[in-house]
């Protein structure tokens, strides 16, 4: 499992900023907001969004991790884990 644990408010804020252009339905973005169910992301949008996250944090998010990342909070934890190496 990739994502349980804490993350910094800075990481969360950065993810919100990146998510805004992808939030087509104007959903209120909370830590527990789900990419697939709440934001209607399909596989192509996921890929595009992950690419922006990778660029912003200068990381590679392995494809194997994606199935375990369903919420913004889980993504924040995963990003910090990858950044720390």
């Amino acid at each position, binding site marked *: 499992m990739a994502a349980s644990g804490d993350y910094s408010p800075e990481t969360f804020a950065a993810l919100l900023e990146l998510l805004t252009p992808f939030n087509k339905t104007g959903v209120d973005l909370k830590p527990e907001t789900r990419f697939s169910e709440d934001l209607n992301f*399909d*596989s*192509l949008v996921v*890929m595009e969004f992950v690419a922006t996250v990778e660029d912003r944090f*200068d*990381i*590679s*998010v*392995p*494809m194997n991790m994606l199935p375990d990342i369903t919420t913004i909070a889980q993504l924040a934890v995963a990003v910090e884990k990858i950044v720390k190496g």
Partner: protein
Amino acid sequence: MAGIFDRFANVKTQRAAIVSNGGPDPFNVRMDQVLSQTEAIIGNRRTILCGTNNSLGLTFAPEALKAAHDALDDFGTGTTGSRMLNGTYSGHKELEYALCDFFQKDHAIVFSTGFLANAGVLSTLMGPGDYIIMDADCHASIYDGVRQSQAEIIRFKHNDAADLDKRLARLADKPGNKLIVIEGIYSMLGDKAPLAEIVAIKKKYANTYLLSDEAHSMGVLGRYGRGLPEEVGCEEDVDFIVGTFSKSVGTVGGFVVSSYPDFEMLRYVCRAYIFTASLPPSVVASAKVNLGLVKNGGALRTRLMRNAKMLHKGLVDAGLKVASDISPVVAVVAPDPQTCVAFWQGLIEAGVYVNLAFPPATPHGYSLLRCSLCAAHTEEQIKQVIGIFTEVAGKLGLLEETKRVAVG
């Protein structure tokens, strides 16, 4: 009542929407007679085939037909077993020797399809602690293969060598092996990988290997048809080449070639090799003959590219939006899926078969009419295809729209 197929409700709705206008069904095309490499009877109509992968037109090569007939008589209709057990006949070994000779590599392993070659090799070559760095636009068989692998999977942006470099740099201090996976020509838009740059990047990093899927470029690129590595002149630097017999070679089957001394070990670990019935002797015999025709097919390659240029230019000049560069794949973009279906229906009713392709199988969310050319297309046939495209696009109002955009 919840049924086991309820989760496909979305697919069902989309499927129904595509044929809701009552026209011909793009997912139910039946060729009742195949008249030649470039013509078939579809729905009682003589139809120009402009959406096959028969790039060199070898499906009716007399030498290959003869070899297949002889093999049928001598070895029967099927092997009824896997390569590992009772499914390796002399023909399978001869085909592997022919592949070594064709690609100038030391080893070749023949699989039952190209899909299985990718799935088999990519699921086993890299293990825990290793990394696969793949182009995001790679084929479904590559995705399925790497998903079954124990390695960590990282995608780089399509044909973006700088992005690949960045991702390899992030992994530079990790101990595992790294395998870069690309395709020589990508199927939807016919675009080539920036191979020279990718090879230069590969050489910067330790324990880094390169696998190229030459499914669409074999027979098409290079003086002897060995694909993009031959054209670019870096065959030594491509560690593994995967390919198929179902496109330019005109039969069916897949393979992997390499000069690594222990490459043969893959025979003992690839489940897609061990647990699949081997190719029928007739298929193997015709593939071997056609490999020779591919190698010496310089004249066919010239005709193929002439045809590609002619169709590309004709469609662009007519005012259609073409997303591909000059290549044996000519991809016409429709504004939306509904118009794309109507366009496709107009073409098939006028006697032209092309492929209909939608996202997520297409890049950039394109709805595409994907044409693919054959060396055996005549100039007359291509003129007809251009004429019919122009007529159908005109009826749908697509030419005017394109011109308006171009002017504005």
